[in-house]
Each structure stands twice: as C-alpha cells, then as structure tokens.
C-alpha cells in the first residue's frame, strides 16, 4: 500500500537519524538535507538508497540532485512509489 505524506516524512526522519544522527523531530518538510540536517552529498546517496528500499521507488542519480529538502524528497516519493 502506498505511503502517505506523513508516513514518508516519518520514514525519512528515521533514515536521516540512522545515517546522520540527527534527532527525528528535526526532520521537517522545509529542512534542507545539506544545510540543515548534516547530510552531505555522499550521505544523501545512502539516504536515497534507504528510501528506495523502504518506499519501493527508484530514484536515479540524475534526480537525486533535485532533492534539496525533505519536502522535495517526500513529493518525489509520493509521485513515484509503486
């Protein structure tokens, strides 16, 4: 069953917490991965792969650079999840 926006944000929060050690409550829609959440470009690849598995989506490398904020990623996953 497709995940809702809320579920996706919660899932991303867990992933970011796991990878960058940021508290889950800090992971909000308007937060930028690199500027606010200490996720650099290589950690972002890890976040993306974890999100692919969790939400059953494919996020190709060329799309990753457009996912600047948690909101961008959430929207992408909502649109592309199987």
């Amino acid at each position: 069953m497709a995940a809702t926006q809320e579920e996706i944000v919660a899932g991303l929060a867990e992933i970011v917490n796991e990878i960058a050690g940021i508290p889950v409550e800090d992971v909000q829609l308007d937060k930028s991965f690199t500027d606010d959440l200490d996720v650099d470009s290589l950690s972002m690849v890890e976040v993306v792969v974890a999100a692919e598995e969790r939400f059953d989506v494919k996020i190709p490398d060329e799309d990753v650079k457009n996912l600047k904020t948690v909101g961008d990623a959430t929207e992408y996953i909502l649109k592309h999840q199987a």
Partner: protein
Amino acid sequence: MSKIKPSKGAPYARILGVGGYRPTRIVPNEVILETIDSSDEWIRSRSGIETRHWASDEETVAAMSVEASGKAIADAGISAEQIGAVVVSTVSHFKQTPAVATEIAHKLGTAKAAAFDISAGCAGFGYGLTLAKGMIVEGSAEYVLVIGVERLSDLTDLEDRATAFLFGDGAGAVVVGPSQEPAIGPTVWGSEGDKSETIKQTVPWTDYRTGEVEKFPAITQEGQAVFRWAVFEMAKVAQQALEAAGITSDELDVFIPHQANERIIDSMVKTLKLPETVTVARDVRTTGNTSAASIPLAMERLLATGEAKSGDTALVIGFGAGLVYAATVVTLP
C-alpha cells in the same frame, strides 16, 4: 586417441607472504589544493584521505614491483627460483609490450617463470589471486607471485576536482603457494560492462597521438554513481563471498576492502553489519586509492602494525573500472 597425463597440483592454495612498496614522496592535501578549488577539510570528510605517495621517475612500475615482491618472497620464506609464475595487475604501465611482468620476473631472479600482465582495474588483485590459486591447484606452478602496482599519479588530471585528491602510487605483492588446508575461499567475481562509462580513461591514447585532444588521458569517474554501486552492490558481493566460504561475520577477523574512499568503507561496514571485533583496513587515509595495489598494501600494513595477525580470516573485495569486482575470504599469511 592417446592418453594425456594429467597435471598434478596441490590440494589447496594459500597466501604465504606479503610485501609492499610506497614511494618515498608523501603528498599532503595542501599540494592538491594548488591545482583544485577545495579544502583539506572537504577532502578528508569526503574521502578520508590525508596524504598519498607519488612516485619519482626512478620509482617505476617495475622498480616498485621488484621491491614489494622481494619482501613478499622473503616473508613467504621461499627463494625467487621457486616461483613458477608472475602475474602483474596494473592499468598504469605505459609500455604495453613486452609485459612488465617479464622484466620483474627477470630482475627478481626467477628461473624463467611464466610472466604476464592483467588489466582488471581496482579488482586486479582479486583477479590475480584467483588465477594463482587455479595454477597451484591445477599444477602449472608451485608458487605464484601476484603483484598489484600502479602509478596513478601519471593518469591523474590534477585540475579535476572529482579525482585530483583521490589517487596514489605504490606496489603490493603476495606469494601464493600450496596448502594442505583451504586458505583461499571461492571467488565471487564478475563484470558489469553496461557501467563502463562510470570510471574510465578519458580518451584512447591514439586520440592523444593524433592531436585530436591536447590533454594527456586521465582517469575520470561519475563519483556518485560509483559510490552508490560500491556501497550497495559490492556489499552484496562481499556477503556472497562470506557465504561461499562458509564464514559468518562473527567468524571474520579482518575486512580488507579496496581502498577507494573511506566513506565507501564506512558504508560497506554498516551495510554488512560487521561486528566491532572485525578489524577494518583504512590504509586509504595515508595511501590514497592505489587501485590494484591497495589490497595487498593494506594487508601488509595491518600485519606490520599488529592490527591483524598471521592466520586471521580476512574478507578481501576489489571493485572498480569495468565495472569489475572480485571478493574472496583468505587466511592471512
């Protein structure tokens, strides 16, 4: 039909000795910053690399190989005449004919050992090891010298922000010989030619000769694509190598992945869920990425510092341009 006598090999093979050679010139990140817009902090945080070694004109592919091999032969406690084959993996020896392995075999004083070069990028050591094991078990050589050697500084575009800081030079060698017990597990290896564009030489040599391009060829890569592949696909391959050898991660003592980038190493360790008891090679910090040389160099250092010891069970995995990969579990010499 006449009956052909079969060759007779050893029951199993093992690594008997290891040796390394690092060029005398140590190059800190400050030198890299002279040609790219970057910072020491960025290079360390994205790659773990603090220093690398760059070879001088005298530290040729052959000279570095002879140094590393001499140490490996001494470590194995054999003499050069006993070596039946010399396998050299390199992508940075610029005289393709004859194979540099023949010069190395001669300089070491082998008794006309079979000698040849292979090209398997950063998986070269695992490819060479697999060939060596086959030769020993099949019976065409009793002892095989496997060398990984690179002068990647010759193939580095110092103005390319994605690679200028990454590569280093050096040679690592192992002597593989007969064993009564299995000490080199099954190799899990392969190639993914559909991803050949992700790490490659910029242009063929012939384009440089004809003047079609002005810049000397160099190695370029799509860093993030390589990172994703290395971390997630190669963790699966590493897991398969453990399973093929019948070793659980709890039974593993040492993990020696290709020293491509410390971030790849960190991520692989996490993905593989290796227990904290496993010693992880992080030679990349002071050696950079030396492609085919990185695994034997890291192995030699872990043994020299006492972080690993003879008889330890180690998982080795190489991966790189091709894309190609090779993983196996070995008993350390």
